[in-house]
């Protein structure tokens, strides 16, 4: 397989040093101009004189294993041992923009898909140039050279030259205009389980997360925002803070107050002493009931048509019975285990900002705009992220840190308390749906009409939604259409809901609720007709062979019927280019489900790192189970009520079922795996509860605080 580089991809080798550096960018539709620092910084791979290979990673490593994967892509083509490569976080530069978004961002489960080709091409080009340099040195044809394990061997003489020795000479050569990429059958790294690149440091406690950053002369700070969502700071008397901690510095911000001190503890104690005067703003009366009412009101409006296929009249003629179902999900917090943090140092030669950010370009531009400096003067340094799940796509806290550092005249590390993290998230939006399912005389759904109320994440939360909306917010409806099952008529409308709460992208975004709505409703319909839900799905997936294969693969993980007192539920959902089926077996203890075993089958085209794919499925299911069982952010008097993990519970080791994952290989395009494991587990669990008790779940979480 030879890849012409020519018009599709541009390779640059940056010569003149002892180091071979290669950059590759695939051509894609023109993007916004992005300030480019020196070419050397844009290098995706560099091979140093001592043979060290450094990979510059555009995506943020937040637990999904993307750094390991990038090393694997390079190692495969460059012919090195992955253990010999180093990874550094890439700076903001056009070469590192995610081509699906035209900006540097880690999201949408796109990292593997976006970088699968560029990093292999860069690796192959670097190898090509090292081979050419060796051939030149030996005075032979390049075909007489063989690259393996970081060295070039002369096939005739058996002589060996390590990459490091060749790097300087290679850097003076022209990059190739065409490179051959290995066929899948020749892979020795990809497609096999890889060892976590940064695994040892994480276990030794030496890995540097955002919260761990140390900059000479820095102060450590913490922050409190207006307790009422959307409120502002009127004034604050620093006296009480300084009396308690004499070294404390109080920095008032627009909607928050930050306190700086030599340590986080002193800053926290000083902050607690403050009695800021807050302007609560328009949301002082907001509560969860009002949010529910807004969803109801949205469902009652006209909405926008998202998808319709089939013939309503034909379906009507077939319908014997109709089911009207209404479901609702709450606001959710991301709650990564590492609380939000950023470190900013402002110096004469520019601004340095360190954070586990998922949005490097947006962070740079937002900081530059607020400080009034050119974007090129802001350098973003991405640290490891202690989880994130979408939380660090937001950059407001980085701007706050920059403003605080400017006010203090010193470098500042700002760490949010867990309480602040839960009370001031950009939450997963709440959503409600009304589904009318028409069943024919065999109890088979023939008509599926769904109204979906979700706030539009593209507009400011305080804006009044339009009816009908001018266009459909694609993330609000993702997963509700296309409808995979064969029906005579399907119709989906979307109804923008006005919820004045900051909201954002939460691992699997719209799929997180749409999978639950559709897949739990499906089982309710199947059971209402006395049909086996999995068999009925298979019967309605005749035109979706990949879906059906995944569902069967999951079913095959359960060779025995459930024992007495045990019940199973299954759900199927396609997201981010992957198809995932999951099942869970439970027993009931009173009205509480006890989870015994869960299974997962995934078709992601091919698993580039099967072990990482499995880990993402396991982790995604546990993430989804925490949300399904306990996840709920409630609001009273404009304030978020959950303050710590005792009120925002996560699944614990004790409650985690055994999990088995199987990977279904297909020749489909690469699918994402970071989010696709989350959506199906909530409906699978509610389907199991339905099987056990006959009771559907109409609201999540299953263990609700407020009845």
């Amino acid at each position, binding site marked *: 397989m030879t890849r012409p580089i020519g018009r599709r991809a541009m390779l640059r080798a940056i010569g003149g040093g002892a180091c071979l550096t290669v950059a590759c960018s695939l051509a894609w539709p023109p993007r916004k101009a992005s300030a480019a620092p020196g070419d050397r910084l844009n290098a995706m791979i560099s091979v140093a004189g001592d043979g060290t290979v450094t990979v510059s990673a555009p995506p943020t490593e937040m637990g999904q294993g993307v750094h390991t994967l990038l090393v694997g892509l390079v190692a495969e083509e460059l012919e090195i041992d992955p253990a010999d490569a180093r990874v550094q976080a890439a700076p903001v530069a056009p070469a590192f923009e995610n081509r699906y978004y035209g900006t540097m961002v880690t999201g949408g489960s796109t990292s593997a898909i976006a970088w699968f080709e560029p990093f292999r091409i860069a690796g192959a080009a670097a190898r090509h140039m090292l081979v050419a340099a060796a051939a030149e040195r030996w005075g032979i044809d390049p075909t007489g050279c063989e690259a393996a394990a970081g060295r070039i061997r002369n096939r005739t003489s058996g002589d060996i030259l390590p990459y490091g020795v060749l790097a300087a000479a290679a850097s003076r050569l022209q990059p190739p205009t065409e490179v051959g990429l290995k066929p899948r059958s020749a892979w020795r790294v990809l497609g096999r389980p890889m060892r976590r690149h940064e695994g040892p440091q*994480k276990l030794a406690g030496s890995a540097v997360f955002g919260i761990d950053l140390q900059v000479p002369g820095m102060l450590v700070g913490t922050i409190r925002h207006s307790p009422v969502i959307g409120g502002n700071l009127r004034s604050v008397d620093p006296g009480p803070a300084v009396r308690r901690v004499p070294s404390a510095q109080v920095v008032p911000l627009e909607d928050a107050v930050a306190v700086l001190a030599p340590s986080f503890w002193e800053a926290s104690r000083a902050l607690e002493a403050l009695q800021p005067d807050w302007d609560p703003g328009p949301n002082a009366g907001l509560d969860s009931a009002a949010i529910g009412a807004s969803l109801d009101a949205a469902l009652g409006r006209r909405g926008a048509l998202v998808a319709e296929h089939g013939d309503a009249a034909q379906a009507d003629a077939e319908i014997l019975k109709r089911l009207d179902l209404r479901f609702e999900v709450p606001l959710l917090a991301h709650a990564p285990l590492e609380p939000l943090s950023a470190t900013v140092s402002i110096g004469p030669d520019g601004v340095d900002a360190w954070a586990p950010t998922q949005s490097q370009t947006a962070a740079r531009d937002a900081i530059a705009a607020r400080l009034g400096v050119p974007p090129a003067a802001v350098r973003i340094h991405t640290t*490891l992220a202690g989880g994130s799940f979408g939380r660090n796509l937001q950059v407001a806290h980085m701007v706050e840190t920059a403003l605080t550092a400017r006010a203090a005249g010193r470098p500042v590390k700002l760490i949010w308390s867990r309480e602040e993290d839960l009370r001031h998230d950009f939450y997963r939006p709440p959503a409600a749906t009304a589904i009318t399912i028409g069943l024919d005389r065999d109890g088979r759904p023939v008509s599926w009409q769904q109204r979906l109320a979700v706030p539009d994440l593209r507009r400011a939360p305080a804006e009044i939604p339009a009816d009908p909306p001018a266009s459909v917010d694609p993330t609000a409806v993702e997963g509700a259409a296309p409808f995979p099952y064969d029906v005579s008529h399907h119709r989906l409308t979307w109804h923008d809901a006005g919820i004045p709460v900051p909201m954002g992208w939460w691992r699997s975004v719209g799929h997180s609720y749409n999978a639950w709505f559709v897949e739990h409703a499906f089982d309710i319909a199947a059971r209402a007709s006395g049909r086996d839900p999995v068999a009925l799905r298979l019967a309605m997936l005749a035109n979706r062979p990949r879906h059906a294969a995944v569902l069967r693969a999951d079913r095959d993980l359960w060779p025995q019927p459930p024992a007495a007192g045990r019940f199973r539920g299954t759900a199927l959902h396609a997201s981010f280019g992957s198809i995932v089926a999951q099942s869970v077996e439970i027993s009931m203890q009173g009205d509480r489900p006890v989870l015994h075993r869960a299974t997962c089958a995934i078709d992601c085209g091919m698993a580039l790192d099967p072990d990482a794919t499995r880990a993402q499925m396991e982790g995604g299911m*546990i993430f989804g189970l925490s949300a399904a069982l306990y996840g709920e952010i409630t609001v009273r008097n404009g304030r978020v009520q959950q303050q710590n993990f005792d009120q925002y519970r996560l699944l614990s080791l004790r409650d985690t079922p055994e999990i088995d994952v199987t990977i279904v290989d297909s020749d489909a395009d690469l699918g994402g795996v970071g989010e696709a494991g989350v959506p199906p587990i909530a409906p699978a669990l509610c389907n199991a509860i339905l099987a056990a008790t006959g009771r559907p779940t109409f609201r999540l979480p299953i263990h609700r605080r407020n009845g």
Partner: protein
Amino acid sequence: MQLSVNGALHEIKSSADTPLLWVLRDELGLTGTKYGCGKGICGACTVHLEGSAIPACTVAAADVQGLAIVTIEGLVPAGQIHPVQQAWLDAGVSQCGYCQPGMIMAVAALLRANPNPTDADLANNIGVQCRCGTYPRVIRALRTMVGR
């Protein structure tokens, strides 16, 4: 005030009521011990006090004077790897890794007290929260370690 951390005595300047977690992180620069909740719930800050696992965020520095404190940095001498860490690498346990220092300290303490724990022992003793959901691999790695 003096604290014994990883086998060495340190003169501590932080105020006596400072939680051990913040003395370790902000004064001694031992950032392997993590902050997750500050309320003794998540276990990200787990260290060994006289060999037992405790959350460092809920004990005041003054209350642990004269007691042996071990953090993830001192679990084994530099350059060595603890059997739990090795088992973790082999099973590919960590994802983001943020909870893992606490998780490893909790597991190491459990194994010292009970070298052959059952799954139930794990469930009852490992309360460290992992938002990434590494629990199935924690259990798998431990089963391998104790030869099950």
